[in-house]
């Protein structure tokens, strides 16, 4: 366990942004914080980054006695803003000195980080002239410069174009080998690609936490849709490999198979029963359905 978050609450003037939020962050995991706009994701992350003081609750890093745990975290805000008169290299050097990176290592570390986010060529240019994608990458560079234990990214890809988004997700994927990553997004697909755990927030409350496959399972989704020429009545009920089913009409059914059963076996069974399959689909958006169910709860 790396961090223990206990009963965090934050109230803005009239709105309760986060209420009684508790969760743990495992060391080495990659966690996505999901939720619709205004669910309290940014507030949560800013409290974790100590930029916002919670009204109540505690954040405790395991094995770190000091109250100010800022040396352990790297933070990328949703809209990072820099000192526009500095160059990328100057900014990272400045940030590295503030994080007490030893002088001998600082230069190499800055170079290495700039190379990682592919800003090497622009390192002596003023940040004021950077594009949004470059600023986002510089933001990531400053967050991981001092090799933090926990990397906190607030909507890292929502402002990027499709290519920038893919590149950025690749960077995060590489980073999660070395550090624990916590990032927020409102796009399920991003989370699906790179993380092993999700937290779903709604109106400041934690609605669900766990891995994505278990999310699909818990919400009783029937991810396979089968259509045959003949009615399937009484056949589906006999199949032992099926965990649950739902008829759409006599010839169409949505099913969920038992764990570890390959969907080919269902096809095989249907053919054995002399049914001609006209449609067989594994529904990709089933995760989206689960997410919507959680959010609507």
């Amino acid at each position, binding site marked *: 366990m790396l961090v223990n978050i206990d009963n965090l609450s934050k109230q803005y003037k009239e709105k309760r942004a986060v209420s009684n939020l508790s969760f743990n962050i495992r060391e080495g995991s990659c966690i996505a914080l999901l939720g619709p706009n205004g669910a309290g994701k940014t507030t949560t992350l*800013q409290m974790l*980054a*100590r*930029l*916002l*003081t919670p009204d109540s609750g505690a954040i405790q890093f395991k094995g770190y006695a000091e109250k*100010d745990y*800022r*040396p352990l*975290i790297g*933070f990328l*805000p949703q*809209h*990072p*803003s*820099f*000192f526009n*008169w500095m160059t990328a290299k100057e900014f990272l050097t*400045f*940030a590295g*000195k*503030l*994080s*007490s990176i030893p002088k001998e290592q600082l230069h190499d570390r800055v170079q290495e980080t700039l190379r990682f986010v592919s800003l090497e060529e622009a390192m002596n240019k003023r940040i004021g002239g950077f594009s949004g994608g470059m600023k986002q990458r510089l*933001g990531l560079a*400053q967050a991981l410069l*001092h090799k933090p234990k926990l990397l906190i990214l607030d909507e890292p890809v929502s402002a990027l174009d499709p290519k920038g988004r893919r590149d950025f997700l690749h960077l995060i994927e590489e980073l999660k080998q070395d550090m624990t990553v916590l990032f927020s997004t409102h796009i399920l697909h991003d989370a699906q690609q790179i993380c092993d755990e999700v937290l779903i927030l709604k109106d400041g409350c934690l609605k669900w936490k766990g891995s994505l496959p278990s999310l699909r399972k818990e919400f009783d989704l029937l991810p396979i849709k089968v259509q045959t020429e003949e009615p399937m009545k009484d056949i589906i009920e006999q199949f032992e490999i099926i965990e649950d089913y739902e008829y759409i009409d006599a010839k169409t059914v949505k099913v969920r198979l038992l764990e570890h059963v390959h969907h080919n076996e269902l096809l095989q069974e249907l053919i054995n029963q002399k049914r001609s399959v006209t449609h067989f689909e594994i529904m990709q958006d089933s995760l989206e359905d689960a997410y919507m169910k959680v959010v609507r709860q």
Partner: protein
Amino acid sequence: MNRFLTLLNKEITELMRNGKLIWLPIVLMIIGISQPLTSYYMPQILDIAGNLPEVASITIPTPTGEEVLSGALSQYGTIGTLLFALATMNVIAQERQNGSITLVMVRPVNEWQYLGSKTVAQLALLLLSLILSYCLTWYYTNLLFTPVDWQVMLSSLVMYCFWVLFVVCVTIFVGTIIRQSSAVAGVSLLFLALIGLLTSLLPKFMEWSPGNIRGEATKLLVEQQWTESAWTVIGSTATLSLLLFIAGVMVMKKYKRY
């Protein structure tokens, strides 16, 4: 200490890059030397303006060097103070508004280091401008009027530096409270004006007031001796400035969000 120096270095580089380190000394120098120059050329200026009736014979007594220098101090007191507050108003407000403060405060930086670096850098800028301007004014005064002893000039300069210290500390303190940079300058100037007003309205109770600094500096020029009241004013100004700085740090520590 290292972090403080890093932040200070950043502040000074910023002052150089955005040109403040160039224009502020220049503007202040112009304000300073305009005093001896206009005093010297006043008869000619009046001649050229030529609106005086022939019969009016006026004689303008030539001022002494000390009087010219105290005239320059009075320019610093008005336009100078306005400039000081304007130059200092957005050191914190701007970083809070555009959010660049978050990338600093997400690192292990404390409020003392942050505010300290701002105060020291701003003081360095304003004091450098004041010293350059005042020395240049002194040089022109010596050329055009009766010479003023350098020790006298220096003691009045040192005295006046405390006014700059006070203005910077007031403006930075207000800057920790208010986010709008123009409002920061407005509130600071209002506060400074209020102190000046109270000082002249209630001279008996306000002997310690920083508003007396210019009077004391003029006294140093004309009477050429340190009096006890000069020490009182210096002491109280230094203490008030320190208190304002501490208060600013306390306000920042109480921030719920940067």
